């Protein structure tokens, strides 16, 4: 028996298949993972993401602290509610976790980190926060849902108190705001528009019911994974971990190199790897033959060596199998994958595979 979110009973009521995810009893799907996937691409779906860890950081020097702790630069966050996606690195430049940081006010930033990495993240943040007199508060009493899809904001708007509704609907991408006792942000992990809503646990079941009654489909971790894979969004533990640099996980764009004198943790090793010609590629793959690409399958690149699929699966939107993979350095656009001893053909494609309901690769 794992930990349960405030929405656990709702999942069981809706017929969810419950699985363990990082110590949490979470819904895998409510009948059909594919239908949930399509609901998010075509209309709206809601995910319970209350297992994720919300950490509030407070103190006069919190901005300085985060400029030291994170590889992206919170100096970019100047308007209240603005969010930034970033990696938190160890001294060797490996990824401890990826997270979203929100700028609330000059003495308060909010982090949303992964559930499976909760303990080591908190330990690392607390250890480094001490020098900056920053207080670290885990907000385990809060629940969080993600309402995603082209109709998500419209269908979720009635859950926001009238006083705040218009302002919430006007939120720009990657920006959040407090709306009474809710925190609403225009963020997500599906490649679709939508909101992530943080709320007191007590309010979660009634907000969930209201969304479902309004036509939003409950969606489980299974659909969450195929949606994020199509959107080419990394999954911690699959696509990167403490032994992998963001530069070899397709996350170079999240590293703020300027200003050059910002000494964030892991910077030295990253600078070395940046100029290393043997640095591995991180790419999207489309399977040209029949079959399904899976995590850890070996990729064979003639003349360059072997690589590995870090996230593979079937794309319900494209109707073919796709993957993210770490491959040897080199300039090539095709390779082969070892599936149960047979070599099948894969094509290297520019990601994302799907964004805002549209297939973005040539099939």
């Amino acid at each position, binding site marked *: 028996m794992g930990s349960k979110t405030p929405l656990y009973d709702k999942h069981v009521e809706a017929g969810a298949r419950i699985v363990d995810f990082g110590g949490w009893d979470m819904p895998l799907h409510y009948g*059909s993972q*594919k239908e949930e996937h399509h609901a998010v691409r075509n209309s709206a779906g809601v995910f319970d993401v209350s297992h994720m860890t919300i950490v509030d950081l407070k103190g006069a020097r919190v901005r300085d602290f985060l400029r030291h702790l994170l590889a992206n630069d919170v100096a970019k966050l100047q308007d209240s509610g603005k969010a930034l996606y970033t990696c938190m690195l160890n001294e060797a430049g490996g990824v401890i976790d990826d997270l979203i940081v929100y700028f609330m006010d000059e003495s308060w930033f909010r982090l949303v980190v992964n559930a499976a990495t909760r303990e080591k993240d908190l330990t690392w943040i607390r250890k480094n926060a001490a020098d900056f007199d920053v207080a670290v508060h885990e907000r385990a009493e809060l629940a969080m849902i993600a309402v995603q899809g082209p109709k998500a904001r419209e269908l979720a708007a009635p859950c926001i108190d009238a006083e705040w509704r218009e302002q919430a609907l006007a939120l720009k991408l990657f920006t959040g705001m407090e709306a009474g006792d809710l925190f609403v942000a225009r963020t997500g992990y599906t490649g679709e528009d939508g909101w992530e809503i943080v709320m007191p646990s007590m309010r979660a079941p009634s907000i969930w019911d209201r969304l479902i009654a309004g036509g939003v489909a409950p969606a489980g971790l299974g659909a969450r994974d195929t949606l994020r894979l199509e959107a080419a969004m990394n999954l911690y533990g699959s696509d990167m971990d403490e032994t992998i640099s963001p530069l070899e996980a397709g996350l170079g764009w999240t590293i703020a190199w300027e200003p050059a004198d910002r000494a964030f943790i892991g910077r030295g090793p990253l600078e070395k790897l940046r100029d290393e010609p043997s640095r591995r590629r991180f790419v999207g793959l489309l399977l040209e033959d*029949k079959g399904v690409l899976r995590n850890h399958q070996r990729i064979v690149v003639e003349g360059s060596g072997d690589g590995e699929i870090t996230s593979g699966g079937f794309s319900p939107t494209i109707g073919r199998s796709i993957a993210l993979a770490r491959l040897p350095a080199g300039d090539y656009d095709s390779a082969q994958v070892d599936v149960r001893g047979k070599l099948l053909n894969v094509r290297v494609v520019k990601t994302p595979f799907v964004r805002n309901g549209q297939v973005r690769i040539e099939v």
Partner: protein
Amino acid sequence: MSELPGDLLYTNDHEWLRREDDGNVTIGVTDHAQAALGDLVYVELPEVGQDVATGGDMAVVESVKAASDVYAPVDGTITAVNEELADDPEKINADPYGDGWIVRLQPSAAIDESALLTPDAYQSLLDEEEA
């Protein structure tokens, strides 16, 4: 509760067998198996004429979640495969004991029913897994 027809034999690997009048055996995966796998997206079928040995890999069913081997429950020769699964693997989800059949084979010897499970025995297996 998963559906469990009374006129079939079952295996510990959640497969079912139907003994046809012509001596062939039709094989598929059970309702419990398809539910556990989730939406099927691909099925790798053997060649007709291929010989299979009890316990050996015979086909692979892949769902949104994972790949799973289908094992030969008896020794024999493949006489037919369900080609429709190539375009529509979800037939296994929709009708695991009917349109979702996977292979048909001609057993090479009399079937040893004591090595297979009766519906009651398979139900007990499911009950144990639930517990």
